[in-house]
């Protein structure tokens, strides 16, 4: 998969302030490849604002976003090379599974037929080959998530963002899909940020955790460290949820 050609592990170093209406969020953290970071917090803590700022859909108030050493904060979304898996996946309804996955390849200037061919290994890797001709409305939640992830990774991003990856799935399938997702994330060689409010997601998917509450970071560390010494009542509840 993608990532820097050589040298230090790819890193995403974030130190930003962003505003959603009158609500300002400040967050700083750094993520390295192979150690996915979970950005957790209650509803309204500012997780989505941070995600939008990283993806380029929201301008920063101030600060910087360093991805492999270059500041991407001033770049438009299409130039950031950050893959995003959206909460409800946002697959293109008018394109087949194959063309959804090939979209990022096509946007690099590859012709449609060649892009489809280049998408084939991704379809196979995500067990989607049999669904290549289907349209998004014909997919189950788990299948749609795999398409969204394959689509994001086929564009060969330098970093990956996932917004509440389990939230729009049925409860019964979450454990299985989550295990599948964890396996795929391990294969990605760039920094990964997972926005979630679920302890199960944190435990299964992330190596590092940053807790965001009311627009500010209240704790950071490994899931183990959070479990040993939760810094706020919210973190204590989250830890209990993970053990319960």
């Amino acid at each position, binding site marked *: 998969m993608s990532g820097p050609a050589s040298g230090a592990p790819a890193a995403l170093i974030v130190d930003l302030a962003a505003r959603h209406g009158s609500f300002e969020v400040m967050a700083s953290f750094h993520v390295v490849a192979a150690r996915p970071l979970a950005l957790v917090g209650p509803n309204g803590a500012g997780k989505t604002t941070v995600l939008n700022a990283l993806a380029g859909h929201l301008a920063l108030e101030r600060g910087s976003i360093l991805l492999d050493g270059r500041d991407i904060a001033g770049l438009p979304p299409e130039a950031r090379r*950050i893959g995003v898996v*959206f909460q409800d996946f*946002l*697959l*293109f*309804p008018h394109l087949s599974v194959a063309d959804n996955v090939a979209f990022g390849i096509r*946007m690099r200037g590859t012709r449609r037929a060649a892009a489809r061919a280049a998408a084939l290994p991704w379809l196979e890797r995500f067990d989607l080959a049999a669904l290549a001709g289907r349209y998004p409305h014909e997919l189950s939640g788990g299948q749609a998530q795999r398409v969204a992830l394959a*689509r994001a990774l086929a564009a060969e991003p330098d970093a990956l963002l996932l917004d509440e990856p389990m939230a729009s799935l049925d409860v019964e399938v979450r454990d299985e899909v989550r295990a599948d997702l964890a396996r795929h994330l391990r294969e990605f060689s760039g920094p990964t940020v997972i926005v979630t409010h679920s302890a199960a997601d944190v435990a299964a998917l992330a190596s590092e955790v940053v807790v965001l509450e009311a627009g500010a970071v209240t704790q950071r560390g490994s899931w183990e460290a959070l479990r040993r010494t939760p810094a706020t009542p919210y973190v204590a509840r989250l830890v209990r949820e993970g053990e319960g």
Partner: protein
Amino acid sequence: MPDSAPRSPTRRGPAVIVWVIAGVALALLVLPLLAILLSAPWARMPALLVAPETLQALGLSVLTAVISTVLCLVLGIPLAVVLARSVAWPVVPRRVLRAAVTVPLVLPPVVGGLALLLLLGRNGVLGRWLAAVGITIPFTTGAVVIAQTFVAMPFLVFAVEGALRGADRRVELAAASLGASPWKVFRTVTVPLVAPGVAAGAVLCFARALGEFGATITFAGSYPGVTRTLPIASYLASQNDLSQSIALALVLLVVSVGVLLGLRDRWLPGVRG
């Protein structure tokens, strides 16, 4: 649930009175068309249909309606994009813009034709400048196209605007994160998403342009082969030869219904078909 519990009114279906009124409404829409069919001079139809005046008016009508529809698409889609985005504007400019687009829908077409004449006529506000450089618009085929575009534009704009607002525009964000520039997002995501709405708008637009009468006769007149479209020819014929008028009306009817039926299945299978 006990038997005495009131059933939901939606499950009982409409009351008898609603059926009766709906029947009257349907009769009002359909019976006049039936009257045309019943009164048509079927024996003389073949001769009337291939009469030079009929073919000339039909050719002119189809040509001008096609050009007007293309013009409405070219001008109307960007206007629909602006209109869809105007929901974020302050109240006054937002309402002014919407009212301006709605005007041709509520304006009597004759008034529209008069307005066009006062703008583009030889002594009109803009027309006198155009005349000075040798361009005369009124009473030309171009005037027919402008009149049709004027009255048909709102149909296209509102259909496309509805499609734009109905589509989940957040997929545009997904496209951008996959490396698509704003232009590529528009071309590969926005346009296909709204294509069914555009097609529906184009069909309505074509039908409206084809049937245009009031603005055309005021602004373009009725010169055979130049500005005498089917509706105008049909109206003029009704003054002295009713059967010819009916024949022309039938042609109009067949063309518009045919376009409506033909395009619906070909262009509007929907992206989820």
